[in-house]
């Protein structure tokens, strides 16, 4: 195809011109078939540089341009916009990356010039085949789904709802609040966790724009950005949510007692239960696995005592369908199971507990109403050893990364223990104390000033001797081995992503890292988006972080959702597959290859049809087509073979 093409070579100061011989490259570019003009400029991305491009497009009546400069990931948008301003379709502007992939990686000037010419030729070949394209407008359903109602999900839901949009907030537990509801006080200010959380849970529970679905899980998501269809599985609660008043009579009368996961197995709850007294919604739920009635035995006590007649033994699982435009994943964390660190004795040695269990002990609503006592015999421990990095920074048995929050919560644990047990001794065994945060170093200093002992060295073994717990450790600063006899040991277990969240991400095909943490679209510049359009993330599901960071990230994710909802419609990249119906035989290879169900064979006409808004533009179908009937726009077979040839 004969097309008038212009080439613009950017010096990028000396970044390109210091290696690539720009005047020579310009001369060579002029000889490429189709090129009618080639110019160079010191910084093409500057205002005068863009003006030069605009003016040249108009003066030379260019029908396509190639800007030889930095990576298209940086300035493709800039130059396409400049082209559009000059009346050229933006998709007829292509970038030849001669900086990141040429001048910066080559020292020989002649070789770099040669390579740069090759890259420019490739892009000239591409632009001579490019078609003018127009972005597709897609309507947006202005409702959001937030998955997970810990502090991250609650914050994101509230921010979106307070801006006037409806939110569906899904939580797998019977009530909202997440791990924050289990915590005692929060570092470094020592605010009571429940006291600052419950106003948020109450607001989320009562918000007219928030539809709260507790004891529910996301089963299936279909559709695409702006237009998702979500199926949510509501587990049977065996209690009528509307009828239950949360009076709690059933909680006293139920004859079954099981260990409370919320209290980290330190207390026992009934088979009918609520997580904690301020639960939102303040409604009970029956644990079907342990309920005598539901297990087919004779009981029915709760139904008899319930003054509201809210018990429904015949409750069934329900599927709720919702349409939303954006999805925020706030799937949260779990603690690493430190029982896997055999030498640390968790689950074997009594009075070795993990950090969340100690939070429950410290909590006023915990097993000992806030008094520090040993789980085994209820005695007040006089010496407590806090073991940091129990699983973190341990590539052999645990996880290689730093869990970020443990240094601070351990300082808090030790401090709170000393506040409750004045003659108690708090010993912290650490590898490094990391305090990068506002007020963190001061808080750590406060702990040491108030008599918490810090010993630098990893703990090697924890075992029982009589009714005490013995810790073998090293003091690497003094250069000696230590044996500490303690009454209780608290392990700062690593933070790992919630396994249900990981499973959901895998089902939804949202990328996760090697440990299951959700991957952000760009680690620095797009930290609250995922690579799948319409999915946003926040909280510890993305990586370990403390409460203020979680809240900030949640508000960030909400802001991104709101920015999307503020638009009248969404734009979809027009680089999508297109079928040549003259050639298509309707074999269905493309349909089987497409990962997005964007192409279907019309059964009546026997031709493949592409649903453009669902097409993500990967081009897999074009390779699968035996007839060569389906092509990716601007990456056609003809275009690519010519790009290869130059």
């Amino acid at each position, binding site marked *: 195809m004969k097309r008038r093409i212009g080439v613009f070579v950017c010096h990028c100061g000396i970044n390109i011109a210091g290696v690539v011989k720009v005047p020579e490259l310009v001369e060579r570019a002029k000889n490429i078939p189709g090129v009618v003009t080639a110019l160079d400029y010191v910084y093409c991305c500057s205002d005068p540089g863009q003006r030069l491009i605009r003016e040249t497009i108009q003066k030379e009546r260019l029908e396509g341009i190639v800007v030889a400069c930095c990576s298209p990931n940086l300035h493709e948008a800039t130059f396409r916009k400049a082209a559009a301003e000059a009346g050229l379709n933006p998709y007829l502007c292509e970038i030849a990356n001669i900086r990141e992939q040429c001048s910066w*990686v080559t020292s020989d000037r002649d*070789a770099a010039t040669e390579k740069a010419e090759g890259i420019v030729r*490739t892009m000239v070949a591409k632009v001579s085949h490019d078609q003018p394209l127009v972005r597709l407008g897609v309507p947006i359903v202005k409702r959001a789904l937030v998955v997970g109602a810990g502090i991250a999900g609650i914050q994101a839901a509230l921010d979106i709802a307070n801006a006037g949009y409806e939110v569906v907030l899904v939580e797998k537990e019977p009530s909202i609040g997440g791990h924050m509801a289990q915590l005692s006080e929060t570092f470094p200010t020592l605010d009571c966790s429940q006291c600052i959380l419950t106003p948020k849970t109450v607001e989320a529970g009562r918000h007219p724009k928030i539809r709260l679905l507790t004891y529910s899980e996301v089963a299936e998501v279909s559709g695409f950005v702006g237009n998702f269809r979500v199926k949510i599985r509501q587990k049977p609660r065996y209690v009528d949510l509307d009828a239950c008043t949360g009076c709690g009579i059933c909680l006293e009368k139920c004859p079954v007692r099981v260990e409370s996961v919320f209290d980290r197995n330190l207390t026992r709850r009934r088979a009918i239960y609520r997580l904690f007294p301020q639960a939102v919604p303040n409604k009970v739920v029956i644990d079907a696995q342990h309920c005598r009635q539901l297990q087919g035995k004779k009981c029915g006590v709760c139904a008899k005592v319930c003054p509201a007649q809210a018990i429904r033994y015949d409750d069934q699982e329900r599927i709720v369908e919702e349409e939303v435009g954006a999805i925020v994943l706030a799937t949260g964390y779990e603690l690493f199971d430190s029982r896997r660190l055999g030498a640390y004795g968790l689950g074997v040695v009594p009075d070795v507990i993990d950090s969340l269990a100690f939070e429950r002990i410290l909590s006023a609503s915990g097993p000992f109403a806030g008094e520090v006592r040993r789980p085994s015999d209820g005695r007040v421990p006089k010496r407590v050893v806090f073991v940091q990095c129990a699983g973190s920074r341990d590539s052999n048995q645990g996880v290689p990364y730093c869990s970020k929050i443990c240094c601070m919560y351990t300082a808090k644990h030790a401090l709170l223990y000393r506040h409750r047990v004045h003659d108690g001794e708090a010993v912290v065994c650490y590898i490094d104390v990391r305090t990068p945060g506002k007020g963190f170093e001061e808080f750590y200093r406060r702990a040491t000033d108030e008599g918490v002992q810090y010993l630098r060295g990893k703990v090697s073994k924890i075992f029982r001797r009589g009714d005490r717990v013995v810790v073998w450790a090293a003091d690497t600063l003094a250069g000696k081995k230590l044996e500490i006899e303690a009454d209780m040991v608290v392990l700062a277990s690593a933070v790992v992503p919630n396994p249900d969240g990981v499973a959901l991400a895998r089902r939804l095909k949202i990328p996760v890292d090697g440990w299951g943490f959700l991957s952000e679209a760009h680690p620095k510049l797009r930290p609250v988006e995922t*690579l799948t359009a319409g999915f946003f993330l926040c909280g510890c599901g993305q990586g370990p972080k403390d409460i203020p960071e979680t809240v900030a990230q949640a508000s960030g994710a909400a802001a991104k959702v709101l920015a999307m909802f503020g638009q009248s419609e969404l734009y979809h990249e027009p680089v999508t597959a297109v079928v040549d119906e003259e050639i298509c035989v309707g074999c269905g290879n493309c349909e089987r290859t497409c990962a997005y169900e964007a192409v279907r064979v019309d059964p009546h006409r026997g031709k493949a049809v592409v649903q453009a808004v669902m097409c993500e533009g990967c081009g897999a179908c074009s390779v699968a087509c035996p007839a060569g009937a389906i092509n990716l726009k601007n990456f056609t077979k003809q275009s690519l073979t010519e790009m290869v040839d130059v």
Partner: protein
Amino acid sequence: MSFEPKIVGFLCNWCTYAGADLAGTSRLQYPPNMRPIRVMCSGAVDSVYILRALLEGADGVFIGGCHPGDCHYVSGNYKTRRRMVLFNSIMRALGLDEGRVLLRWISAAEGKKFADTVTEMTERLRQLGPSPFRKLWEV
């Protein structure tokens, strides 16, 4: 003059192309023998392009994609992997050394791996010598 191989590289937009950019940002030096072509996905690299490159004078073809499980398009790289197994048998039938066509998973964070891969492939092709197709053409 010693033989300098020509390589055509198909780099997937999301991983390997970004990895190649990172090699540049990190100023890692590698041989200039590879001409990069950005494609949206390694799964969109038709075997026809590879053959075409070899017939038109390339001594080697490189395809870079996302690591298994990391494909931006869910499963494009698995399609590439299956296709390359088939393609290798075509290579053997044509009497071409399998080292002339290389598929590697290089993520956006692996600038060094990208530079090392190009260096390694260039070295290998220097040893293998010009593509036999090229000789045929000269005759």
